């Protein structure tokens, strides 16, 4: 029965990874940008929430009302002011710039907040759970995280499929120059896309901060998990990202059943297996190079 519980917990954990990976997937899908600063930016959001909570005493979930718009603006300005200039057929400048950015942000956070682990306290919801059976308990908060992940993906799906902006995103993702000929200001739309990506990262960061303690150096591992979720699920598929997150989550929790210190490693090994056997991921569409 512990195995079933491990799988259930893994599915719930997958919600966290999926939430993380969504922004990564979005940026890559629209701009072919692999944002190496993605994890650190999630930590930035968590720390902004921390400061807000510290100053005002509100529940971190309430602080989201401020953190999400802040991170949206950060994303828009970052893309328009810096990252737009790195886009092009050569992926190198974007990799270098986002990596440098990750280092700069992480160390700025370290300077300001120190390396101490912090937490965001969301109150009783953190420990409340539903007892399905004697062995299986579903925590309210993890369930909420998964629900939010699914909700965010659903909203994004509708945005892409049914709105003028969504069509514009898909158009410039297919063919940037022709998009321009249609009157789409691609610099603005790339910035919007990054804004949306960081808005989702804000949610992911705050939920992570509630779930566990966090410190500035955690950005890298979050980046790797998010990336693994995207690859396992397959590039170019938003729902694939959800599936990838869940598979990664289950891999980690089941791995922990074998040996407590092995959870992360098991996740990595599953990722490598997918990479070796099905490099396009489980639901991936081949992405034009």
């Amino acid at each position, binding site marked *: 029965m512990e195995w079933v519980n491990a799988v259930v917990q893994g599915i719930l954990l997958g919600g966290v990874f999926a939430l993380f990976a969504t922004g990564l997937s979005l940026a890559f899908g629209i701009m072919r940008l692999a944002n190496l600063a993605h994890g650190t930016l999630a930590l930035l959001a968590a720390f902004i929430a921390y400061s807000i909570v510290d100053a005002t005493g509100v529940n971190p979930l309430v602080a989201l009302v401020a953190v999400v718009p802040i991170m949206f603006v950060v994303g828009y300005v970052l893309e328009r002011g810096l990252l737009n200039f790195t886009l092009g057929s050569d992926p190198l400048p974007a990799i270098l710039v986002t990596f440098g950015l990750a280092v700069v942000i992480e160390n700025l956070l370290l300077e300001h907040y120190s390396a101490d682990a912090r937490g965001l306290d969301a109150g009783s919801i953190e420990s409340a759970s539903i007892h399905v059976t004697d062995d299986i308990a579903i925590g309210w908060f993890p369930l909420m995280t998964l629900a939010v992940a699914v909700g965010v993906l659903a909203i994004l799906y509708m945005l892409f499929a049914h709105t*003028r902006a969504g*069509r*514009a995103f*898909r*158009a410039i*993702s*297919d*063919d940037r*120059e*022709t*998009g*321009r*000929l*249609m*009157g*789409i*200001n*691609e610099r603005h739309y790339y910035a919007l896309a990054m804004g949306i990506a960081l808005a989702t990262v804000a949610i992911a960061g705050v939920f992570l901060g509630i779930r566990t303690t966090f410190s500035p150096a955690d950005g890298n591992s979050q980046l790797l998990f998010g990336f693994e979720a995207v690859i396992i699920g397959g590039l170019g598929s938003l729902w694939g990202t959800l599936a990838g997150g869940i598979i990664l989550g289950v891999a980690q929790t089941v791995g922990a059943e074998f040996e407590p210190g092995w959870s992360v490693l098991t996740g990595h090994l599953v990722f490598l297996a997918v990479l070796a056997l099905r490099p396009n991921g489980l639901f991936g569409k081949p992405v034009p190079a």
Partner: protein
Amino acid sequence: MSALLELDGIDAHYGQLQALFGVGLAVEEGETVALIGANGAGKSTLLHTIAGTLRPSRGTVTFAGSPLVGVRADRRVGLGIALVPEGRRLFPSLTVEENLLVGAHRRRSGPWNVAGVFDLLPLLHPLRDRRAAYLSGGEQQAAAIGRALMANPRLLLLDEVSLGLAPAVVKHLYAALPGIAAEGTTLVIVEQDIGQALAVAQHVTCLLEGRVSLRGRPGELTHERITTAYFGM
């Protein structure tokens, strides 16, 4: 009354390579104008300077009295210039209808909408939900023209509509052009197929190796003069 579109002394470069040498062109509103010439003569290049995707190294482009150099391509759509690009360049992952809707991203007011496009080009109607990647060449070309119309342009630029298409298909597409001109749209058609171009145009300009080699009305130009201007012999 000044022309809707005026190009004066246009030089254009691709890196070190000069493609246009002092080209001038004047197009009156409501006219259909043909731009002919051999491969590499500079016709598409000229269209790109009008559409805004290539910046001329010298010369002026004036549209409805306002200078265009420095105005970005996406803004020119809002001013009333739309380009049907060489090679169609539909968005492959979008359906035909979605491609049309993207064409309306920055639309001006006017008669063209999805229903209107389907009326003009009925072959598109059954294809409305098909992804553009799965269309034939002729279907793609029709969709590309329709997509450009959705912006309700004052000036519609068509780049090599006949390229890679069977003559019967080309005839069918060209049959739709008078319908567009009837709404008052000005057309500049770049073509290698001289016959079709001369049949619809009121004015012809021929380019040879980046320079204007001939201008005139189709009725006034002899076959011999056109051939000389086209091939440069």
